[in-house]
């Protein structure tokens, strides 16, 4: 029942976003066919007719809505002879690989590092890691990208600086997107794990002579995962925001690149398509994170 309600809310959210984005774009003064040189009025009219921009707003919205249901966002206004859905279908996998990989890196680095930091909170390396995490959070994404580029691409020449190719091309973008998140996860895990390390259960298990590896896994890791799962929703939003930047730095033809271009060049249909896909993705991620959280901690389900 709960899942059905959440799914309905998800669909409703997509529809609202679609409507809002539609209205925002159609009510602005500048049209997509503005250019430095004024177009012949006849040409202008023909163009608007071709793309249905001359019809009443309500009719246009009806078309957009039926298109949305069929997954068809019409032709792109800037990329000639190309359907928005084709562009999206090409761009989506790239963005998904980028975002998914970054999330994986964030978790794989953040959780162990956080546990390590908590266990060695008083010694030098624990403090060093903690400070490093704080520093990562204090830098914009693209500065990290610039630093990694300077080291690994320009100085050492190990990794390609831009473009699309094999896995090697994704390594730097994954790191740039994932490392700040892993710093955030490190801080979350660290504070929770520090509490857990002082708990009675850990003291008891130590007294019983359990090896530290098992103690950490059973009594420290588990309670520390709660905040991490709660963070997955905001993390996917952060990945989405960050991917706009990282895709541009590394010249990856993903959704973010298309969105920025579309927003700047007023390619209405493309921008609308990307916005809807983004909303759907983000909604799905928060939904999954919430369900996972309820699964982990049944008390939450009872509340909501």
């Amino acid at each position: 029942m709960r899942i059905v309600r959440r799914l309905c809310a998800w669909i409703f959210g997509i529809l609202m976003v679609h409507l809002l984005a539609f209205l925002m774009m159609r009510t602005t003064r500048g049209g997509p066919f503005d250019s430095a040189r004024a177009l012949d009025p006849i040409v202008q009219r023909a163009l608007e007719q071709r793309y249905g921009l001359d019809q009443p707003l309500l009719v246009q919205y009806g078309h957009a809505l039926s298109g949305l249901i069929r997954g068809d966002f019409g032709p792109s206004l800037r990329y000639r002879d190309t359907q928005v859905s084709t562009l999206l279908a090409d761009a989506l996998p790239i963005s998904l690989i980028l975002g998914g990989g970054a999330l994986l890196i964030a978790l794989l680095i953040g959780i162990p590092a956080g546990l390590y930091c908590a266990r060695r909170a008083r010694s030098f390396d624990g403090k060093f890691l903690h400070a490093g995490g704080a520093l990562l959070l204090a830098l914009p994404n693209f500065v990290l990208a610039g630093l990694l580029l300077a080291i690994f691409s320009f100085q050492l020449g190990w990794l390609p600086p831009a473009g699309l190719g094999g896995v090697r091309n994704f390594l730097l973008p994954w790191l740039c997107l994932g490392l700040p998140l892993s710093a955030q996860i490190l801080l979350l895990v660290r504070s929770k794990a520090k509490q857990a390390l002082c708990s009675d259960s850990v003291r008891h298990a130590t007294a019983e002579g359990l090896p530290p590896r098992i103690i950490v896994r059973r009594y420290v890791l588990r309670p520390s995962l709660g905040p991490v799962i709660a963070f997955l929703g905001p993390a996917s939003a952060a990945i989405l925001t960050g991917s706009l930047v990282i895709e541009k730095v590394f010249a990856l033809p993903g959704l973010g690149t298309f969105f920025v271009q579309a927003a700047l060049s007023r390619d209405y249909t493309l921008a609308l398509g990307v916005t809807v896909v983004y909303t759907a993705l983000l909604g799905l991620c928060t939904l999954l994170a919430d369900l996972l959280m309820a699964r982990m901690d049944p008390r939450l389900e009872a509340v909501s």
Partner: protein
Amino acid sequence: MKSTRGQKVAWGFLILLSVAALLAPWLPIADFRLMNADARLQPPQWTAAPVLGTDAEGRDLLARVLWGARISLAVGFFGTLVAMLIGIPYGALAGFLGGRWDRIQMRFADALESIPMVVFVLFLLSILQEYRADLAVIGFGRLQLFFLAVGVLFWLPTARVARAEALRLRKQPFVQAAIAGGMKRSAILWRHILPNMLPALRVMLLLTVPRVILMEAFLSFLGLGVEPPAVSWGGLANDGLAAMNPLVDSIWLMLVPSIALGLTLLALQKVANSADD
């Protein structure tokens, strides 16, 4: 409240930076807009004339970083202020009124949270480019728009904190007494709830400022930040990134503004932690 040495250093750094930023027009530094074709891409000299070097147009980087501090700090401060002005009344009302109002308001907030707000703000900023002339008439430049955009982006966490505080305060005896005594609800909000929320909101303020400054850097990168000749740290770091290539060594162009940005954000974090304890 006792602050540690680190926190004192952080406060000192922030105050020094703010004073330097405020006084930038009167400090004995080069003009940040002055291009000099003979002194392009000079690395930092540390003790001699271009202390922090020059950029690709021969402009003095120290001056640019100080002038950038003006914009970045102003954006951080005013953007946060807007976020607070939206978030506090919203959250305080929800928490204080409770019941159905609270539920509706929080549902709305939840719905907003699952929407990619950044995408909308980018849209809004690019659409508002169309209306620049009209907005300029009523005194709205890129910077003011920016404050608004940031406020729209960051009010939600503030609203949540304000709501939690209002919920907590509503149960306190002195508020209950005021309600029982027949005090007007608006007066209770103003006299009892708001002043007692301030400590929690101070932490929120200090936590929001760094995020707003980072957001400015983000938008500068996408070309929607402040416009030249105005400079901001995010814009400078982005220029540094753009100037970077394997053949010419110009890494300081990115490093100098980034270090300024990083140090400021770290100091803010440190100060926020001290307010938290």
